[in-house]
Each structure stands twice: as structure tokens, then as C-alpha cells.
């Protein structure tokens, strides 16, 4: 069977007719635009793409794409997507979700999806706030965050979403930022190429309820000085005015300035296949002088859930033959009454 040729798409082919209903200035716009471009490039026919979301500003995503889309209920998108992908493995399935949707109410489905390694892509728009419900702190809000529901500051320690994903057995874990136009697309492509569950955290500015949450490293200057772009096999260095790097000491990362004492050669090298390194990178505290890392933190090959399911179905047919109704009904001991 040869697959039918996939049309040459442009970004516009992935734009739906629905009026976009995010606040002007919301970071979701740029993510949408990037995803539309990427979908046009992945070589999958539009009808074979399904985007599943939960509830939240971010979860309105499917309405604005001209693919199949399912805006489900809060937190459960991974479960719907699993059911869809397992029964239709040939589809390209994407999950659009928010920090609240994925990590608060949806936390259980999220970790189980990663554990099972169903081949789909999770895009989690992390604005560190509940946008749609008008600004309560979320499980990724920094401790002490003052919101309507935490007037004296939140008491909860936040999740590190990437650490959680790694601890859950995630096989592809990456991060990008809404406004990093050149960065977000390659990360999404890598996610799409990965066979297994790809988790991409996308920092996203909610300019209404949590404006500037990522500003300390997204503004023009900071972007150059405080962001570490991860590249497999490349040393962990960053900065343009001042060049810095990460060296490994006692299984801990340390920031050093490059120059006479330290050079690139002293720096740790990024290894996408090393989960411990990924955990260290995910745990870096920008308030303690560490950079913010973006890119692919971790990626390994592992069998996918739906491949396992399909293989068992095939093996079963091979062994028992395609199910036959008469045999089904008449299984076990039967007798005839005359």
C-alpha cells in the first residue's frame, strides 16, 4: 500500500474559520502561528491530524486549526487522546493543554500517558496561572505568588514540569518559549519525529493575569544572556556579552564564567539520552544564577503503547484466526436440546 501523496501545505491551510478568542497580546497567538507552520511541514495529510485539548484558554487551541479537533473536559485530554490513538494508530495526534489542565486536575492522566509512551505530542502552554478562570495560582506558580485565591502568597511548592515528566518515565521532554520564534519550530518538529509520547513545555505569557512571568529571560537582552539553548553533543554554554558555562561537580551543575580559568572544554556536554543530566537541567533555578534551558532535554527510544497493542492483536489473529462469530457464541461446552 502506498500512502496517498500529501499536498504541499502552507500555514494558511491549517488556519480554521473560527475567530480567535484570546486576549490581545496573549502568548498563545504566537504558539498557534508556529504550530500552524509546523503542521504544514510535517508531511501529514490534514485529515489525519487530530488535536485534543482539555479546558482553559490554551485548550481552545483546536478551534483555530483546520484539522480534526476535540475540545474535551478539564484535565482529561491525555485519556481521550490515548483512546483515539490506540484505536487509530495511523493518525497524528496532538494534545494542547495548559499548566492547570495538564498538571493540576489532569496530573494523573498526564503521568500515565508518559509512562505508557503512546505516540503523540503534548504541547503544554505554561503561563504559571489559571487564565480562563481569571487568575488563580497554578501548580507551576512560584511559591509566594499573590493571586485572588492566595492573597498572602501561595504556600504550595510548584512542580518542575519537566522533572515530573522525567520521573513519570517520559521518553521525550523538551521546552520552548512562546516568543522564541526560531526555536519553537525545531522543537516541535523534533517532538513530532519522536516515536512515543513527546512532552513540550512552552512558556507562555498571560498578559492579563501573569504578565511578564518570563520576561527576565525573554526580553531582547536577557534572551541572549540568560538562555541556554540545548544541543545534543554540544557543551552547555550560553551568553553573548558574558560567556558562561555549566560544569559538573559531584553530580551537581555549577555556573562558571568562561575565560582564563574555564573554557568550553571544561563544560559539561549535553547528552539527550542522560536522564540524570536532564533532571539537573530541569531543576536549575534562574534566581540562583542559572540560565533557563530550552530545547530537547531528554529523548530515548522505547516501544510505544499502541505498537504493543497492535502487535498483540496481530499475534492473536495469527494464532487463532480472525474472530468468528459462530465460534464466539458456541465457545466452551455446549449441548443440543432436541
Amino acid at each position: 500500500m502506498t500512502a496517498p501523496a500529501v499536498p504541499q501545505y502552507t500555514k494558511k491551510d491549517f488556519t480554521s474559520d473560527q475567530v480567535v478568542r484570546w486576549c490581545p497580546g496573549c502568548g498563545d497567538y504566537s504558539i498557534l502561528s508556529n504550530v500552524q507552520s509546523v503542521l504544514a511541514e510535517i508531511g501529514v495529510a490534514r485529515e489525519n491530524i487530530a488535536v485534543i485539548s482539555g479546558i482553559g484558554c490554551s485548550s481552545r487551541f483546536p478551534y483555530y486549526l483546520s484539522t480534526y479537533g476535540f475540545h474535551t473536559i478539564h484535565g482529561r485530554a491525555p485519556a481521550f487522546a490515548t483512546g483515539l490513538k490506540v484505536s487509530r494508530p495511523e493518525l497524528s495526534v496532538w494534545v494542547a493543554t495548559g499548566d492547570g489542565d495538564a498538571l493540576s486536575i489532569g496530573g494523573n492522566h498526564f503521568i500515565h500517558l508518559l509512562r505508557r509512551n503512546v505516540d503523540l505530542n503534548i504541547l503544554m502552554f505554561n503561563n504559571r496561572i489559571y487564565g480562563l478562570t481569571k487568575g488563580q495560582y497554578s501548580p507551576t506558580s512560584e511559591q509566594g505568588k499573590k493571586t485572588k485565591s492566595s492573597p498572602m502568597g501561595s504556600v504550595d511548592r510548584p512542580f518542575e514540569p519537566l522533572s515530573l515528566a522525567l520521573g513519570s518515565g517520559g521518553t521525550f521532554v523538551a521546552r520552548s518559549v512562546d516568543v522564541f520564534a526560531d526555536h519553537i519550530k525545531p522543537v516541535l518538529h523534533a517532538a513530532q519525529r519522536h516515536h512515543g509520547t513527546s512532552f513540550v513545555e512552552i512558556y507562555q505569557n498571560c498578559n492579563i493575569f501573569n504578565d511578564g512571568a518570563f520576561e527576565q529571560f525573554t526580553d531582547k537582552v536577557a534572551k541572549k544572556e540568560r538562555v541556554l539553548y540545548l544541543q545534543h553533543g554540544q557543551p552547555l554554554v550560553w551568553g553573548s556579552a558574558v560567556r558562561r558555562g555549566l560544569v559538573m561537580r559531584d553530580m551537581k551543575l555549577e555556573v562558571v564564567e568562561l575565560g582564563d580559568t574555564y573554557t568550553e572544554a571544561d563544560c559539561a556536554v549535553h547528552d539527550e539520552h542522560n536522564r540524570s543530566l536532564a533532571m539537573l537541567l530541569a531543576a536549575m533555578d534562574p534566581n540562583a544564577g542559572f540560565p533557563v534551558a530550552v530545547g530537547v532535554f531528554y529523548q530515548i527510544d522505547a516501544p510505544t503503547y499502541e505498537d504493543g497493542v497492535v502487535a498483540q492483536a496481530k499475534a492473536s489473529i495469527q494464532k487463532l484466526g480472525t474472530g468468528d462469530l459462530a465460534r464466539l457464541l458456541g465457545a466452551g461446552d455446549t449441548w443440543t436440546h432436541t
Partner: protein
Amino acid sequence: MSTLETASEVVIRFAGDSGDGMQTVGDQFTRTTALFGNDLATFPDYPAEIRAPAGTRAGVSGFQLQFASHDIFTPGDLSDVLVAMNPAALITNLKSVKRGGLVVVNTDRWTSRDLEKAGLASDPLTDGTVDDYHVVKVQIGNLTRGAVAPHGVGAKDADRCKNFFALGMMYWLYSRQMEPTEAWVASRFKSPYKEANIAALQAGWSYADTAELFHHRIEVPRAEDLPTGRYRNIMGNNAMAIGLVAAANKLGLPLFYGTYPITPASDILHHLAPFKNYGVTTFQAEDEIAGICAAIGASYGGAIGVTGTSGPGLALKGEALGLAVMTELPLVLIDVQRAGPSTGMPTKVEQADLLQAMYGRNGEAPVPVLAPATPSDCFAIAVEAVRIATTYMVPVIVLSDAYVANGAEPWKLPDLESFDLAPVTFRTDPEGFRAYARDEDTLARPWVVPGTPGMEHRIGGLEKENITGNISYDPENHELMCKLRREKVQRVANSLPPTTVYGDEEGVVVLGWGSTFGVIRTAVDACRADGRKVAHVHVRHLNPLPNDLATILRRYDKVLVPEINLGQLVRLIRAEYLIDAIPYNKIQGQPFRTDEVMARIEALFA
């Protein structure tokens, strides 16, 4: 020598520790009896614990079986014979034995320690407790050990064979054949356990024969009044599984079963899991919510999504079920009811989820609700649920229960052609496609699956504009949609056959649903035999109720509604028809007994 007598029906009950294998011998007796050609019905009754402490009352596991030479509907109220493997089994089961009935006790387990574990201050065999019964004492353990010794099985393992010794005695008593069980043992056990179990079985038989334990041997001729055809013995959960597969296969759809294990629904999963070559995918989800959501995801993708659970799980699925209502996708949700509220009594029967099934979701979210009447009816109900779900594009709830799910009865294999289903067609023509356009008859919207070119569209849980399926906050549209969703469910009633009225045209009508079918039918027969004018109406469709139901019920002076709850169908009937239907409730984790229902009917004539 003992004489051979003929009986038209017999009720027998095995009781012992959870670890004594009572369910196994119950199943074997059932199988043998079914193969022989009796009609039968079974009632396993076991504790929630895997192995409750040996010898205690809480640890007792029971299995009751009625078999007959004619059509029967229940496993019987009181048993003719009880096999009690220890004092706890005796004391907890004695009240379900007929006065004068036979009680076989395993006296090997009759030490003062055993009595103490059973919470007995004195020995019931000597303190007068069993005076009204015919007691036969057998050292089952000892005799079994002797019988299996030649096969080199140690004492502990030997003890595990004693259930087969007991079974052998019963086979002798009721003139059953041993071959089916011997074959089963041979296929299930490895040497030396195979030989040991068979030896125990044969030893039980021989012991009964030679020790002249029983005054007479009983024969129950095969049931001649059963319709001709090929039969098998089937449990409700198994019939449900097969029904789902059969319906999906008939429609040419893959079946996706998303579920989380829970007593007493887990066996549906266990039965479905091996059917991978039938296009069945089972998904053991992380919880009940993921189970239903994955099933809806699969339905969205063009499979028939099914989810199964028991009461607490149904509570968890309410929100997602509402999404299926809103997105008008087909889905079958099976709730094998158990005694609640909360964790309740997980292995016991109850019918108290009806109103939850009707209303357990936010907003106006009506769904069709069905209930099987008997173990084998689970097959037909599963097919019916799939029919309704795919024809009307709605989620459907099936209310099974612990009694029907674990009970067994002979099932006449349906003619493969007899349950033909209208074929399902996915819409593939983009011309004029609207996601919420409606079929004139059924009001169903088109089923369009991802992968279909040119028909990409978005659905979700926000209110939809009729026809287009766009999000809509329009006030009139919302009212229209609420009414359309209700009307769609209501129209299912137009596809139902006329309601069967069994019995008299006047007097009292007994209205039942679900697993009380058998006991009500038996009680109605008995009352009619006593000269009362009584009818039995059984509804398999709880929502919508049949179109002709009100007219039928109004023909009678009194409407009695027995239910294993505090009155749920009766509330629907009263609200719907303003008929002064009379509730009759028992909520004890146990099925009704025939005499109870009879007495209640009789009281209406007083």
C-alpha cells in the same frame, strides 16, 4: 440400598472457607448439570476479602444452584441440601436450608478451635441447632487425604482437593456424570494435582455409594420443555462481553473497552481481553475517568467505545458522560451495580444506581438506560445498547448487577441472523456536511471520523449550535438543543417492540426491572396458581420507558414495584404517569425470595 427418586427441581448449596474452592465445585456442578440438559440458575455469594481469616463467618463463601426438569427463573430460595465445610459455613448458611433438608458437614473441621473461630459458644451439631435437619457427618478432609495419598501429594495440597470429594458425593446423590469434571480437571491441573483431584472426586462418589450416607438418590430429568437448539451455560458478565463483541462484529466496528477493575464488573474485562482477534482492544486505564474518556476518544475515532464499572465508578464517570451527551457520540457504559452507598458491600447485589444513571450528571443530560433481566439476557442487552448508541448517536447506560453478573443459566445460542443490526455508515461526503445536521427519524448527527478528507471539524463540550455545530451562547439555541437531546432519547421508544404482559389482564400488576425478573415471574406464577389475578410486566428499557407502559399499568387496580433499593423505578413511574404505584423494597445485599414477593402480592388482595 438407597432408593432412586425423581425430583422436578433441586436446590443445592456449597459453603466453606474462601480458600475451600466452593466456587469451583459450584461451577463444576453447574456445568455438568447444564450439559445434562437441566434448566438451572446459580447464585454465588462470596465475601469481599480475597481470603478472609480461615474458619470465620466473614470468610464463608457460598454457591447456590437450582436445577430442574422444567423452565426455572431463580437459583431458588431455600436449598434441599447444604454442604458445609466448617462450623462457620454451617451457621451462616443453615437459615437458607429447607426445614428437614439435608446438611452434609465436614466433621474434620469441628474442633473447639474451629467452633471458636466461627464465634460459636457451643457445638451446633449437638446443641439443638440442627434438630430440624437431616445431618450427615463426613470426615471429608481425612477421607480426601487417604484418597489422594497414592498420588504423592502432600498433606497441605491434599487438603486442597477436599472440595472435589464433596462434589463427588453430590454427583452421586444427584446422579450426575463425572466425566465433564474429570476432563476439566485434566485440562486445568498438572500432575500430580490432576490425578489427586480426580481421585478425590471419585472417592467422594464411591464413599457416598458404599457408606450409604443418603436414604435415597435423586434424579432430576432433563428439561424437555426448553426450546430446541444449541445451548451453553453462561454467566452474566460473560454474556455481556460476548454480546458486545457480537454487536461490534455485526456492525463491522472495532470494539474498544476502556475500564478500571472493580468488583463485580472486572470479569467483563477479563472476558474481553482475550478477544483480540475479534477486533477487541481492552484498555486497563489508570482510573474510571480515564476509562470512559479513552472509550469516548475511541468512539470519536470510529470504534464502538465501551466502558464498564460498578457504582462508585459510575459516580466518577458522570462528567465525561455529559461530554458524550454534548458531542453526541456513541458509547456504552455498563454499570454492574453493587450494594452502596460508598464502598458499601462490594460483592452484594443492589439496584440502587437507577436514579444515578438517570440524573448523575450536571445539566440536562438524558441518556438511554437499559437493564438485563437474567444472565443470558446480558447478551441481548449488550447488542441492544450498541444498536441504540450507534443508531441515535448517544451514550447508553446498561444497569447490570452483582446477581445477574455472577449468576449463570443455560443459554440457547442465538441465531446469528437473529440480531442483525442496521449497518453503521461513517459519513465521508464533504458536500453539504454539517457536524450537527440531524437524521429526520432518529435526530442522530453524522458520525465522521478523523482521517476523512475534507470534513475536518471541531467538537467539544461547549453548547453547540444545532446543524452547524459551532459554539453558541444563543439562548434559543440552547433551549432547542436541550430539547433535541431529550427528544433523541425519547425517540428510542419508537423503536421498541410492544411491552409483553405476562399473566392476567386485570387485578394486580407487578412491575419489575433488572435481575428481579426471575423471582417476580416465579412469585406471579405461584400467586396465579393460587387463583389470584396477577400480571408481570418487566421493563428492560428504563429510559425511555416503553410508549405503551402507562396504558398497560392503568388497566390494573394496583401496581406493585419490587426493587432492591429504597424505591427508584417507582419514583419514575409516579412522576411520569401519576400512577399510585406501590414500592416494595428490600435492600439487604440479597435477592428477593419468592415467598417474600408472593406474600407482598397476596397482601394487596387483603
